């Protein structure tokens, strides 16, 4: 792999706090190696800003290996940038060429208010999980792990849904700011497993109710969420959620 050095222009959203209107600032960055990660490029810029007596750009990040779900930049109009099945922290600078301009914004959704600069509040996701995204089993009351066989195919689907990292890219990409993919992934993960069956009706109803309460928009099946999901969560899960929700509603009216 041939490595190269580039100079770039960044247009970054700066917003002091939740009540500030916010604006774009333009920053030139120089001497960026194609081997750097995108966030390491921001680190370089932040060190430079500090030395100039300016405030560094606030952004969320933690594991920097694509699994904690904390990083959340909207890069040139796309959550997590140009690569498929990828998080911002795993995006590397070889995706760019010398002279490129990169526009960086926070997730844009009413249910994810901006805290500062590129950092948003995704507490709504935790509250949706609180509404029913679990199996009610107290510590110590479990049966032997092999007592209930699970069809491999179903277990694999459940795992694929459970791979969601809760980053919120699906919401950021959606023109309606819908959280359907996030909710669907959790409902699917648990509904596909026999352990999740006893609560599946209540779970679908309460999680959807909480999602609505948080102000996320409706799903119009455009599939933008799936296209940007760093973990490749399929919109088949949304179909499954709709089915679960409908069945639960029918059962409730019985």
């Amino acid at each position, binding site marked *: 792999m041939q490595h190269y050095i580039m100079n770039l222009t960044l247009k970054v959203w700066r917003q002091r706090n939740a009540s500030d209107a916010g604006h774009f600032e333009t920053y030139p960055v120089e001497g960026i190696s194609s081997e750097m990660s995108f*966030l390491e490029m921001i680190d370089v810029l932040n060190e430079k800003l*500090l030395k100039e007596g300016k405030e*560094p750009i606030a952004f969320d990040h933690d*594991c920097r290996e694509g*699994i904690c779900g904390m990083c959340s930049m909207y890069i040139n109009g796309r959550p997590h940038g140009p690569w498929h099945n990828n998080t911002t922290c795993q995006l590397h600078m070889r995706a760019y060429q010398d002279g490129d301009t990169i526009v960086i914004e926070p997730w844009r959704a009413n249910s994810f208010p901006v805290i500062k600069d590129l950092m948003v509040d995704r507490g709504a996701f*935790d509250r949706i999980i609180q509404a029913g995204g679990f199996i009610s089993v107290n510590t*110590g009351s479990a049966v032997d792990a092999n007592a209930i066989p699970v069809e491999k195919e179903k*277990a694999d689907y459940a795992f694929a849904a459970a791979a969601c990292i809760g980053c919120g890219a699906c919401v950021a990409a959606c023109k309606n700011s819908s959280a359907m993919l996030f909710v669907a992934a959790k409902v699917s993960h648990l509904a596909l497993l026999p*352990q999740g069956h006893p609560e599946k009706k209540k779970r679908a109803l309460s999680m959807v109710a909480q999602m609505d309460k948080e102000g996320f928009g409706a799903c119009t099946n455009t599939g933008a969420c799936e296209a940007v999901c760093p973990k490749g969560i399929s919109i088949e899960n949304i179909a499954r959620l709709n089915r679960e929700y409908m069945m639960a509603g029918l059962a409730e009216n019985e």
Partner: protein
Amino acid sequence: MIDSKIPTGQLEHKWTDYKGHCKLVNPANKRKLEVIVVGTGLAGASAAASLGELGYQVKAFCFQDSPRRAHSIAAQGGINAAKNYQNDGDSVFRLFYDTIKGGDYRAREANVHRLAEVSANIIDQCVAQGVPFAREYGGLLNNRSFGGTQVKRTFYAAGQTGQQLLIGAYQALERQVALGKVEMYTRHEMLDVVVIDGKAQGIISRNLITGQLERHFGHAVLLCTGGYGNVFYLSTNAMGSNVTAAWKAHKKGAHFGNPCFTQIHPTCIPVSGDHQSKLTLMSESLRNDGRIWVPALQNDKRAPNDIPEEERDYFLERRYPAFGNLVPRDVASRAAKERCDAGYGVGTTGQAVYLDFKHNLIHKYGKAEANKLAIANPDTDTLIKLGKEVVKEEYGNLFDMYEKITGENPYEVPMRIYPAVHYTMGGLWVDYELMTSVKGLYALGEANFSDHGANRLGASALMQGLADGYFVIPYTIGNYLADEIATKPIPTTHPAFTEAEQKVSERINRLLSIKGKQTVESFHKRLGKIMWDKCGMARGEKGLKEAIVEIGQLKAEFWSDVLIPGGSDEMNLELDKAGRVADFIELGELMCQDALDRKESCGGHFREESQTEEGEAKRNDEHYSYVAVWEYMEESKWQLHKEALHFEVAKPTQRSYK
């Protein structure tokens, strides 16, 4: 002085006897007792959820925006448990024995045996929560093998086992939040423990969004704050992983156990340049199927696929024929370093070795698949194609991650890997009940020192975090809180709270008033370099002494020239980082002291002065069969206490994986 409170009686009965005799708190009283849990990784989330279920009133804290982000999430390969589902001879005793031996006889037998005993319950609990472990076609759970063992006892969910386990614990935690039993404080950092009459009674925390300092009372405080690998700057830890909570506790009287015991993981993606902010692990499970090699010729610049089989040195298989590529982490790391130092390393820096999957793609998986499909005399390309499908299912996400970072396809070209700091076996000293040397203050998971001795075996960190949180603390905390039922919540206007908050506030103001010229990051990098060079994979007396002097100088420079913009009553990420780096600097000094004191090699601690003729680590049981328990006296001054280790069942032998 050091009382580890290990129950008497036979090893295999200790935990059962303890549970049968420890004090209980009745449900009505549990409601009146408040417990603070700091950190929401596997240990913290499982403890907070379990204590909430029992009826305690819990407050949980994490510095991230959600408890689901804690760094346990990044654990890849798996979790051990003595289920013996594979019928390959596993048992509680074998898991216990492997762990003690793997830790190079520097862990407590009683703790490790308990860990092995509860390991099976963990798997049951996780499956009941909906953790989607890998399964066989018959619907039952699958296992893989890991380093330092000869059985298959590792349960896994592709290369995302930590994520799935943490989400299980997180969901259990959020369920308790919904039930009103746990109050969750996200984007909060603990900055001190409040100790009243020798007992932990609360914490001071900082709201990282507003900058506000807050006081919280608790009848007990649990630190589940992970390890301190970031003292090396570059490690596989998350960017936010830090020692601050543990360090504040240490300065309030909680002794630190074996601080120098650091695990350097053999298979990480090598450093690519000065810009590097962190290192990424490639799971140990890959050593099941990857073979590690370097060219047999020094400075061989040929592309790996151009080097013929007979000109490759599979150095782990050569040196350790019995365990081969699956030797424990410390052994594998040192062997890789030895080859690179001798000039056989690969890649642009020469600081890397190959991890090659081709052989097993073809011979193990490819042939097995071809047999299943009854393809007679398949050619190599077919075998590779068939093998790839299997490997993809097992490790697909890891291979993708590698390709994203390096731009190379590991199905075609061998991975380049090099050892990196990954885990810290050392931590706050705790007794059998997980209580630190401050009453009512507990440490769980990686934050304590207790179960892994001088080297942790793969897939044992997840096991320990969840054992502590789900199955140990719910019992042991009752034994303490039973005597606290009459203690009314102490109002946070108590002078001890006021004083603690004032000290925290003073330190913040002191940091902000320096207004120097050098960034926090630059100090952290310099500390990391000192630690890696002189207290890293190999440690010598001279280097350690130099390191202590250099760290002292760095500390003085930090406190006179660090640059932190902004104020204290707002979000200030540089300030957060500065506080953590200041604590890392102090910790670094203690780690070097500890490494200097231990004039033997054991597990991950390799003293250059103590090695066999073949360059293997040489333990000294006569003089060093103890836990180094460091008591904080004053700045840069500690007193060493020794907790003698007794081996009644697993008699220490020189570890051999040949």
